[in-house]
């Protein structure tokens, strides 16, 4: 006999062995003792929680030679035949392979004949959600009033795909995911019986990875045993299962919260080098940020998080630098990346994009503050709105964390704050030309593009005088009344009051006019380059090289 995997070897054969589903086994056993056994059952639940096993146990319990009993004996021929899958009266049908209406018709043909040996004829249809609509409908009449010797047991992971007409004819049992403690108990029982030495921690890692599914846990345990045979060390388990190092998660979160793009990209590289699966890393990141969110939102997070005290402390320290709103937005990005990874052949890129996005997240401006600003704008003449765009360059910045208006008392205080701000900016006597153009760009890109070509002759809150090359497209466009009106409106929005705006042609040959923005940008770049050149020339190393090779500097390029 060849090797049988643990999940099959340890498939529960009695209701007692079936762990984590006491609500199901209790109900079924009571039904058997009171003689109220329904003729159709539907078992639903996640993978590997015991649906097929329960179906077989129920079949055995009903047909066992010891009479319908609450625990099958597993010794009589009837029980053994069912266990081996050779029984002539218990039909285990693969619903996903036999999906058509013809398959169901064939089943109905045979249904009227009495069972050949056992008490009942039992049809177990596994993966029943794959039956076609016609097949389901062909089953309806039979399912409603089957002959007394027939029982149906359906099992599926996807009950939502089953028509309601079928659902209403069945007794439905929802199988739960198995809790970590119960998984551990069962795993411990199995490894002890198999004579394997393994620590509780390693078992916990396996059970956690199994994610509430007994079969998943056992598949993983099998793999571990195949690798380590009878003595399992903790390191083997973590390396074999690719458990992501908590250090790496911490570094990643820190890089993201610290807005360090280079470090964030380095994390992706490290994940790749160590050979973790990108998706798994992403999911563990989700778990980590969930931890952060819980630490921020709940006064006593220990009850919700299954982590050690030192790890909790680490989360607390990190949480102190990140507001809850940001953590939630990080989570949104990660969750989106997780779904994207299911579709891409290049998961590393998805991870890198997500990390970059997170590291460049603009800070949240509290809605309260925005409303205040809006009110000031609406009231008109209330002053300018200072710094319209939040800045994110500064590393761990003091976030304008406005406390949620928990009570009415706090409201006036924050309003006062908001009002002080604009009035203080009102005293500023000059406006910054580039900032204004940037502001215009946010509303009307076209006009901003025109303005970029203009030389600002006078720029003050009361008066704007901008010159353009005579006869140019920019001049005529801006002199167009519609554009001029739009510009005026925007200037009013920006300043709080309407300045006089003059668009004039640039006097020919005038060199006194200030450079327009484009020229200025070019100038700045040129200046930077010349400064660089200067620096390079002064560099001793370069000097040495120039001297030795009798060379000259052909060009300078910035690397970063």
């Amino acid at each position: 006999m060849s090797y049988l995997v643990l999940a099959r070897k340890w498939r529960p054969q009695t209701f007692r062995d079936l762990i984590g589903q006491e609500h199901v086994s209790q109900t079924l056993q009571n039904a058997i003792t009171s003689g109220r056994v329904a003729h159709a059952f539907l078992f639903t639940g996640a993978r590997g929680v015991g649906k097929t096993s329960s179906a077989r146990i129920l079949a055995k319990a009903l047909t066992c030679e010891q009479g319908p009993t609450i625990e099958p004996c597993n010794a009589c021929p009837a029980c053994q035949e069912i266990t081996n899958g050779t029984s002539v009266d218990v039909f285990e049908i693969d619903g996903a392979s036999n999906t058509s209406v013809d398959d169901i018709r064939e089943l109905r043909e045979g249904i009227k004949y009495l069972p050949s040996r056992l008490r009942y004829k039992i049809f177990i249809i596994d993966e029943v959600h794959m039956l076609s609509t016609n097949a389901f409908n062909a089953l309806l009449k039979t399912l409603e009033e089957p002959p007394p010797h027939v029982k149906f047991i359906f099992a599926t992971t996807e009950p939502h795909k089953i028509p309601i007409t079928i659902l209403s004819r069945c007794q439905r049992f929802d199988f739960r995911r198995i809790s970590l403690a119960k998984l551990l108990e069962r795993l411990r029982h199995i490894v002890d019986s198999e004579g394997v030495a393994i620590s509780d921690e390693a078992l916990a890692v396996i059970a956690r990875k199994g994610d509430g599914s007994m079969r998943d846990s056992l598949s993983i345990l099998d793999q571990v045993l195949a690798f380590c045979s009878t003595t399992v060390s903790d390191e083997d388990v973590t390396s074999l299962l690719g458990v992501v190092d908590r250090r790496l998660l911490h570094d990643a979160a820190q890089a993201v919260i610290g807005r360090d793009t280079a470090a964030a990209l380095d994390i992706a590289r490290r994940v790749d080098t160590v050979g973790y699966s990108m998706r798994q890393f992403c999911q563990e990141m989700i778990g980590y940020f969930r931890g952060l969110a819980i630490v921020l939102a709940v006064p006593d997070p220990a009850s919700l998080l299954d982590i050690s005290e030192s790890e909790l402390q680490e989360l607390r320290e990190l949480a102190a630098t990140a507001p809850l709103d940001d953590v939630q937005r990080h989570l949104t990005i990660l969750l989106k990346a997780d779904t994207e990874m299911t579709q891409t052949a290049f998961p590393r890129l998805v991870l890198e994009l997500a990390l970059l996005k997170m590291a460049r997240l603009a800070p949240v401006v509290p809605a309260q503050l925005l409303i205040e600003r809006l009110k000031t704008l609406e009231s008109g003449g209330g002053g300018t709105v200072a710094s319209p765009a939040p800045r994110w360059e500064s590393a761990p910045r003091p976030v304008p964390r406005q406390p949620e208006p928990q009570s009415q008392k706090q409201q006036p205080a924050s309003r006062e704050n908001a009002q002080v701000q604009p009035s203080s900016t009102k005293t500023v006597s000059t406006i910054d030309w580039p900032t204004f153009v940037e502001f215009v760009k946010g509303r009307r890109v076209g006009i901003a593009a025109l303005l970029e070509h203009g030389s600002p002759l006078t720029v003050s809150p009361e008066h704007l005088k901008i010159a353009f090359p005579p006869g140019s497209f920019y001049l005529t466009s801006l002199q167009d009344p519609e554009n001029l009106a739009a510009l005026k409106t925007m200037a009013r929005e920006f300043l709080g009051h309407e300045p006089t705006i003059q668009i004039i042609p640039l006097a020919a040959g005038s060199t006194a006019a200030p450079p327009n923005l484009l020229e200025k940008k070019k100038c700045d770049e040129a200046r930077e380059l010349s400064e660089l050149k200067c620096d390079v020339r002064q560099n001793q190393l370069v000097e040495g090289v120039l001297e030795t090779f009798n060379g000259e500097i052909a060009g300078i390029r910035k690397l970063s």
Partner: protein
Amino acid sequence: MSFSGVVGQDSAVTVLERSLAAHRVAHAYLFTGIEGCGKRTTALAFIEAIFCGRAEGCGSCPSCRKMASGQHPDLHLVEPDGAFIKIDQIRELQRQLALRPYEAPRKGCIIEAADRLHPAAANALLKTLEEPPGNAVLILLSPNPAGVLPTIISRCQQLRFASLPQETVERLVLAGGVEQEAARVAASLSEGSMAKALEIVNGAALEERARFIETVCSLSVNDAGRIFAFSEAFDKQKDKAAGMLDMLQSFLRDVLLRLGGSPEIVNCDLAPLVEQVAGHNSLDEVMGKIGTVTTMQQALQRNVNPRLAMETLVMRLANT
């Protein structure tokens, strides 16, 4: 083909070897790892070892020789027929597995690209995968385990295959008699996939790629004529479309890394162009462009009109 023919997958091979030695061979495996990192080779070696009975697979007995020439009667291969593995293929497999093995101790089956199992086919496989008749061994291969049904994964022992280190790929490509420079570029572009590296060094893929990327980068919205001409040319080589988009994405990723402050660049032969594009675009713009390419890739899988899609893509990517 024995385990010694598998390069750079020591951990996965160790797991398999030990399970052979401990007689703990499971009936279902899922090998995951990028395309061309040795999953198939390992699966064949593993089945050869099982058929042969000696630890490694001797390579000289009739069974091993039949495996080597790919005509062993007890080995069943399932590959996607078109875009999917269809339910009929799975039914045929089930019929085959129901028969006794012809000469080997048990039947072996390799299902490639398990993420491309049609949902109906995947469900049809579930019962077989849980309790295969006649203790057959089923090995599923998939570059993208996220696309595999969780009910399938739960029934398999999952083995992760790491992508090959760049040096290993370079060494292997060099051993195939390729110039040093080409081998280096191919290795860095391969992302650890031997199959991809070989595809790159064979044929004029490298120059074609450079030309393609340069053209895309030089296109401008102001010159719509060229955009349309380019898309038309693209339409004529539909079969290469997916590959080219991958290249473009890898190039844009370099730009992204460059802007994000990471020193690693995959397209080292195109470094000046990466610099240039990085100088013209902000990080957010590049992220947007990568998103556009991803959308296009997904659209191509759904049978859109490639020319229209390409036109849209290039217009979005073009310099304004």
